[in-house]
């Protein structure tokens, strides 16, 4: 299908690609430029900022009214805790699905596929009322607590993750575990000392996918968290900017750059795994 190009043909392709490159990169460059522009406004911004300074970044870390740095920290912490718990929880379930034969196994697998039919965020109203109720009994897990939010995320995390992980566990030969069990290992020791180390790549993928998903989650966080110092970045940044683009653009840009950085870096390092994870996850539903 592809022939060697004449000079002119090659040029045509590069021209088209350049157009899309501009489309893809312009917003990013524009925001990076804005973040160094001390004027803090949309008005009269140019791609290469005049009098570039770190003023906006300093504002992100020092503003008392809008603790943006704190929101980024909240998002990271909530993302890390959720992802870690999800990996533990789903790897346990996936191990059972992969290695044991028991009543309800088929139904369980089926259920883990089915729950994706019902995105958790759709039930935001019920979840809000449920967490409100839980909070009356156990205040630490109620509305406006990070623990409550994490708890809600744990519920929504089963689905694809368990399915992906089970698929990976299935590819690990059972002979290793069998010989370990002959040496007297319990099934749990086999899981902990043999399966988990061998399954590290998929654990990492699930962890990262979950982290990115949690970090960007907006609807449940905005329903469940109500006080400024507890916002995640997704909720806080939105409230910070509202319609005040004219007066807060620079600080917003700095916050965006800082907020996107952890995800972009992760993404760049793990592009290959993530893309294959995403596609195979989607193929399975």
């Amino acid at each position, binding site marked *: *299908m*592809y022939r060697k190009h004449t000079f002119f043909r*090659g040029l045509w*392709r*590069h021209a088209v*690609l350049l157009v*899309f*490159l501009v489309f*893809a990169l312009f*917003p*990013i460059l524009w925001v990076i430029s804005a973040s160094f522009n001390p004027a803090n406004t949309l008005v009269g911004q140019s791609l290469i900022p005049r009098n570039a300074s770190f003023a906006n970044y300093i504002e992100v870390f020092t503003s008392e009214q809008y603790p943006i740095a704190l929101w980024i920290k909240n998002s990271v912490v909530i993302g890390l805790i959720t992802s870690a718990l999800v990996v*533990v929880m789903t790897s*346990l*379930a996936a191990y*059972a699905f992969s290695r*044991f034969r*028991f009543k309800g196994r088929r139904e*369980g*697998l*089926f*259920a883990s*596929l089915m729950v994706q*039919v*019902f*995105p*958790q965020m*759709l*039930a935001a*109203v*019920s*979840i809000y009322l*449920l967490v409100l109720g839980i909070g*009356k*009994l156990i205040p630490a897990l109620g509305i406006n607590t990070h623990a409550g939010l994490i708890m809600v995320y*744990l*519920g929504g995390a*089963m689905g694809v993750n368990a399915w992906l992980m089970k698929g990976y566990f299935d590819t690990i030969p059972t002979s290793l575990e069998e010989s370990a069990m002959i040496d007297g290992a319990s099934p749990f020791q086999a899981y902990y000392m043999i399966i988990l180390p061998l399954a590290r790549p998929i654990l990492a993928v699930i962890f990262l996918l979950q982290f*990115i998903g949690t970090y*960007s989650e907006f*609807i449940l966080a905005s329903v469940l968290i109500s006080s400024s110092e507890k916002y995640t*970045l*997704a909720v806080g*940044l*939105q409230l910070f900017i509202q319609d005040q683009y*004219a007066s807060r*653009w620079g600080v*917003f840009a700095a916050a*965006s750059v800082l*907020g*996107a950085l952890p*995800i*972009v870096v992760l*993404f*760049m390092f793990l592009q290959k795994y993530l*893309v294959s994870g995403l*596609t195979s996850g*989607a*193929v*399975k*539903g």
Partner: protein
Amino acid sequence: MVFIWIALYLLSAEAYLVFVLLLLGALLTNVIFMLPKAYPYRYLLPAAFFLLLLVVYPIVYTVYISVTNYGTGNILNKEQVISQFEGRYALEPDSDEFVFQAYRDPQDSLWLLFTDSQGEKMLGHRGELTRLRENDPLLDQLAGYTELSRVDLVRSTNELSAQSFAYDDTHELRMRNINVFNLYLQQYSYDRERDALLEVQTGIVYTPEYGYFQAPDGTRLTPGFRALIGFDNFRRLFGNPQITGPFVSVFIWTIQWALLSVATTFVVGLFLAILLNDPHLRLRKLYRSLLILPYAIPAFISALIWRGLFNTELGVINQILQATIGSSVPWLQDPFWAKVALIILNLWLGFPYMMVICLGALQSINTEMYEAAVVDGATAWQQFRHITLPLLMVSVAPLLISSFSFNFNNFSVIYLLTRGRPPIVGAQTPAGHTDILISYTYRLAFESGRGIDYGLASAVTLVIFLITGAITFFNFRFTGALEDVNKNV
């Protein structure tokens, strides 16, 4: 230990239902850990617990709310509403006036000495009223307390107006102004046997109907209470022109939006993938890793950034348009342009994903096919149309369907760029021209200026469930995921 502590706590909080559930849960846990046959279930316990509590239960509860009238005006339950009505008093028209003096005892507690127009004296303290004889010993006791001056009275207005004393069966003594107390008549009394609210003065009987206490002539008392109202929410959704109209237009736009999102991102993604798949292209690795960048940025940040770029007065896009073609576009104010803005944003967000999966799919196509086609004299377009596209579709089609259902519920892009605006004129519910079903639901439930409506929101949610469910089932069929389950068991 912890369990016992929690159980005791729940008992003390009178949360019996939760207590019973906890007991059952603990019992089940013990069974699972004691029976050797139940060993595998131990591994499933944590995941199953969270799944049941935070996914399955909310879905069931959503179904339940959709047949109730839960929302502004019907937030409280029936008992709370009844006690609210029983606490309502109206000024008795021919009430005597009671002048009063206020005293504080050493414990700072308030004592009120009332005198009616006949000169009869009464002493009120902590809700109780004592009629005083002449030279009552209580009067001497009172003399030992500090009497409040006029200034003190004004300062204690809140405390005073909270005081009420039962005068007789239907009357209470309450403060009318800083000078006098008056008799107030209880407006409603609840008859437990007939389950009805009686208006004391008029004798009208209000019976509970569809979440309100209603008089025989149809007058409703507000607030109402939470109640089952059958399929009323669905009837409103499909039968009330002011709700159905916006709902239908939201629905149509949701479908358009999901289709357009998939189509635009796929066409651009595929086009770029074909360009980049060319092994002779220089710098292809660089192009690829730069073009993928938009996908790496969290969507909520991108959406907010684009909102700034689209800003009508100051945004850079309008500035460029102004400089080049001399006119600007009302991006976020005009229904049509707001939709265009959304599609552009979603194209930016989504084309890298499509590009990546198309690149993967293209690489798996056997090149011998093209060689054979070239031998047969096929043009480049024919090769694309008859070899590339059909083979690509086999692996990419399920992803397109997933992408459709993802965009069908793509709340954050819509909400963060346009918030559903501009609003649809004349809609009874907060519906906007760019609202999709999920953002419409969110606004119904959480931020309507005209009051929240959990019931209607849940009804819309069920409609979304049905559609998303149908699409996903179709996709499972398509990819054989369900057969996978069978095969794997």
